[in-house]
């Protein structure tokens, strides 16, 4: 289920003792203020399980909460490391809430975040209630929960899954265990070897915790007959690399002939055969219910939720066929998903299936928008920490643009739908000629390519990244930014005047980070004009090429900069807005400075404000135009 370290767990115990004296206070409650929920994530985005739970949690919370709830997501256990640099994470979380009310509730997602929170509870807002969510109950057993803590735990009986395997494939002799490596893997190995003792006469379990990822794949390809792969968790490998389960499952299922089994419902469709699976949707929904109850004043100690166990038997039809498993062998009442549709006969269904896949992709992207990752001191100093802070800010910023994805995707989806339905009608009435069908298919293809571009454009902004040093064309930065923002500027009826130079203008740096600066500036401009009459909402975006610099200015006709923030506009946590953390401009300026440039703001004589980003040109240093990056 999740990463876990024994050492951290001992620390948690020690800290709990120190915390016994901490008083429990009534959180200040005022109905017009949004409730702040701090969500501590165990893993970076890309984990099918945690992304799924998080998306369900957010969606259910939004539909259930009576009051406004603001969620802030942070990853406390970093990807690719067995041990987190915990001190900076705590510093960052504390600095986030310095000079403001502590969060109303902390929600942890998964084992490592739970262990982290228990270890550092004293310094992490000890009076704030905590919900330990999606954590294997084995990890909570050793120490009792405190009065202001509760849990929505999971309890997975892995022997049930082994029984599933034996019922479907009675000839199975070898089980290839994929548990990742490191302390978590050691924990699971010890636990499961004990649980699996009863199969000693029948099955051989192969453990892989000492393998690198490449070695793991090599071994998986060469499995003896009558083997199955048993996938336990996303995690690190012996080399310290980390990746989401999606890729691991894809690699295993394309390279190995052995069927793959795993307990997480979120993996169905990604390569596992199925069986009794954990319902991710139920977890997220239950967590949202508990959050609503706590926000409405219920004491966490009074909320006792049974650990969630494996649910109904569910299978992937494609994997069943691949593993040659007859549906007659499945437990009665099994839910079989992903049945293949037939092409022309069920054209409508196929279209809907394609739509479903695309919508699912859209949902997934929207889910990803709500992702999280920052362990970070508030002062942005080194390039490394800039990259991290920028990641966090970019995700928060991009989440505000989530609506635009649905809108943008609706155009190509509409085109695909109408073209395919037209094709179906023509074929049904014998009016289809090869030419019209070819035109229809090439339009469907073009629409699909466009949908992919939209998804990619947003995905690029969501990717965690190191700061790049590449020649980039400022024009492409501006164009991509405008494409990301077009929905919002349109929806808010803002007149946008864009002045671009005719020739490419090259600077050295990071395309995504510069786009982030412009997105931040444009969002600020849009928000500054929220109360401006629609007819006078204007943004002038100008890009001017000077001898040594490229100067991009964003001028709005909004309320202008208040005198109260004079001189500290670019300081962290200074904000004039009711929403947001006030960290966007700090990061924007840090990004400008990392590019050896500047970012300044002033009020316009005729109202509104202008932000000016100045970047040194690098034409002289760029060796050839071919190296210019354009997405």
């Amino acid at each position, binding site marked *: 289920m999740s990463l876990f370290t024994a050492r951290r767990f001992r620390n948690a115990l020690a800290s709990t003792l120190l915390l016994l004296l901490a008083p429990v206070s009534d959180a200040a409650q005022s109905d017009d203020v949004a409730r702040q929920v701090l969500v501590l994530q165990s893993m970076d985005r890309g984990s099918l399980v945690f992304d799924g739970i998080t998306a369900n949690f957010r969606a259910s919370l939004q539909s259930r909460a009576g009051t406004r709830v603001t969620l802030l997501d942070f990853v406390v256990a970093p990807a690719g490391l067995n041990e987190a640099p915990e001190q900076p994470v705590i510093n960052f979380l504390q600095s986030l809430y310095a000079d403001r009310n502590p969060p109303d509730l902390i929600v942890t997602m998964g084992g490592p975040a739970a262990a982290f929170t228990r270890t550092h509870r004293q310094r992490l807002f000890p009076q704030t209630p905590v919900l330990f969510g999606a954590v294997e109950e084995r990890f909570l057993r050793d120490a009792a929960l405190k009065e202001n803590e509760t849990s929505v735990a999971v309890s997975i009986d892995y022997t049930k899954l082994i029984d599933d395997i034996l019922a479907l494939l009675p000839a199975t002799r070898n089980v290839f265990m994929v548990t990742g490596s490191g302390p978590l893997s050691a924990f699971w190995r010890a636990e499961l070897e004990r649980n699996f003792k009863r199969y000693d006469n029948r099955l051989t379990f192969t453990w892989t915790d000492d393998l690198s990822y490449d070695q793991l794949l090599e071994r998986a390809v060469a499995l003896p007959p009558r083997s199955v792969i048993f996938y336990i968790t996303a995690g690190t490998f012996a080399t310290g690399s980390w990746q989401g389960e999606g890729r691991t499952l894809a690699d295993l299922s394309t390279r190995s002939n052995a069927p793959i089994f795993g307990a997480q419902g979120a993996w169905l469709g990604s390569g596992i055969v199925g069986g009794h699976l954990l319902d991710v949707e139920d977890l997220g929904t239950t967590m949202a219910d508990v959050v609503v109850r706590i926000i409405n004043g219920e004491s966490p100690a009074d909320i006792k939720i049974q650990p969630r166990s494996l649910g109904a038997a569910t299978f992937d039809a494609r994997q069943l066929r691949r593993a040659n498993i007859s549906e007659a062998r499945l437990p009665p009442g099994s839910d079989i998903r992903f049945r293949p549709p037939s092409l022309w006969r069920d054209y409508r269904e196929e279209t809907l299936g394609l*739509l479903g896949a695309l919508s699912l992709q859209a949902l997934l992207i929207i889910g990803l928008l709500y992702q999280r990752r920052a362990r970070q001191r508030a002062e942005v100093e080194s390039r490394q920490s800039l990259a991290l802070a920028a990641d966090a800010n970019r995700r928060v910023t991009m989440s505000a643009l989530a*609506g635009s994805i*649905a*809108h*943008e995707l*609706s*155009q*190509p*989806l*509409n*085109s*695909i*739908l*109408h*073209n395919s*339905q*037209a*094709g179906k*009608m*023509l074929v049904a009435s014998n*009016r289809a000629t090869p030419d019209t069908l070819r035109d*229809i298919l090439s*339009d469907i293809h*073009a*629409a699909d390519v*466009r949908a992919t571009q939209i998804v990619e454009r947003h995905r690029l902004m969501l990717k965690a990244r190191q700061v790049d040093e590449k020649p980039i064309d400022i024009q492409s930065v501006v164009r991509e930014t405008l494409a990301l923002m077009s*929905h919002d500027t*349109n*929806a808010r009826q803002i007149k946008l005047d864009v002045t671009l130079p005719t020739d490419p203008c090259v600077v050295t740096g990071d395309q995504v980070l510069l786009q982030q600066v412009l997105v931040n500036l444009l969002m600020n401009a849009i928000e500054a004009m929220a109360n401006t009459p629609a007819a006078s909402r204007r943004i002038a975006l100008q890009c001017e090429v000077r001898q040594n610099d490229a100067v991009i200015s964003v001028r709005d006709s909004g309320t202008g900069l208040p005198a109260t923030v004079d001189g500290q506009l670019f300081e962290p946590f200074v904000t004039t807005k009711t929403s947001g953390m006030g960290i966007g401009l700090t990061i924007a300026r840090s990004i400008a400075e990392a590019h050896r440039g500047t970012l300044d703001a002033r009020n316009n004589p005729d109202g509104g404000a202008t932000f000016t980003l100045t970047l040194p040109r690098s034409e002289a240093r760029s060796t050839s135009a071919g190296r210019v990056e354009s997405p």
Partner: protein
Amino acid sequence: MIAQTVHVVDDDELARRGTERLLLAAGFDVRTYASALEFFSAVDAETRGCIVLDVRLPDQNGLDLQVALAERDVPLPIVFMTGHAAIPDSVRAIQRGAVDFLTKPVDGDVLLAAVSRALEQDAASRVARAHRQNLRSRYDRLSPREREVFLHLLRGQLNKQVAADLQITERTIKLHRANIFQKLEVTSMVELARLAIDIGVDPTA
């Protein structure tokens, strides 16, 4: 039967072509336009059919185009399509007479059903409009004096009262009345009153 025309206004070429193909496959005559202006300059009060209109256009909001068309007396029924359904927009559009307000991606069957309804509405309103025009042209034949008498009759006045009000003889009124009935091609006061309602003459004015 002559195919009925559907005017598709959408700035997105791929989306426009998909919708065009669907409507063509369903047997409609289709004309496409990439902007509000292109459409606006191509149609007038005589244009027939219906409009499939994207809410967001580069030059003008589809909802504003709806108002502009109404002001110019272009009676084409409108089916809106939008990628981003805002409830206030849809309420406004429907209040102003839109046939439907659909969120993209729009299922083909749903769109075809809406287009069929719009075309039926257009045909029905054409008939009503033609009838109204016919009545109006009859009314236009009345002389100013006859119109005056017409209004008094509509108020339910007797010939005698009309004569007193207009200070002319009752005999003249009878003559006017006969002429009015003849020109308006009606045979009873009931028909006369219905005609007045249909062409929108207000007897109290």
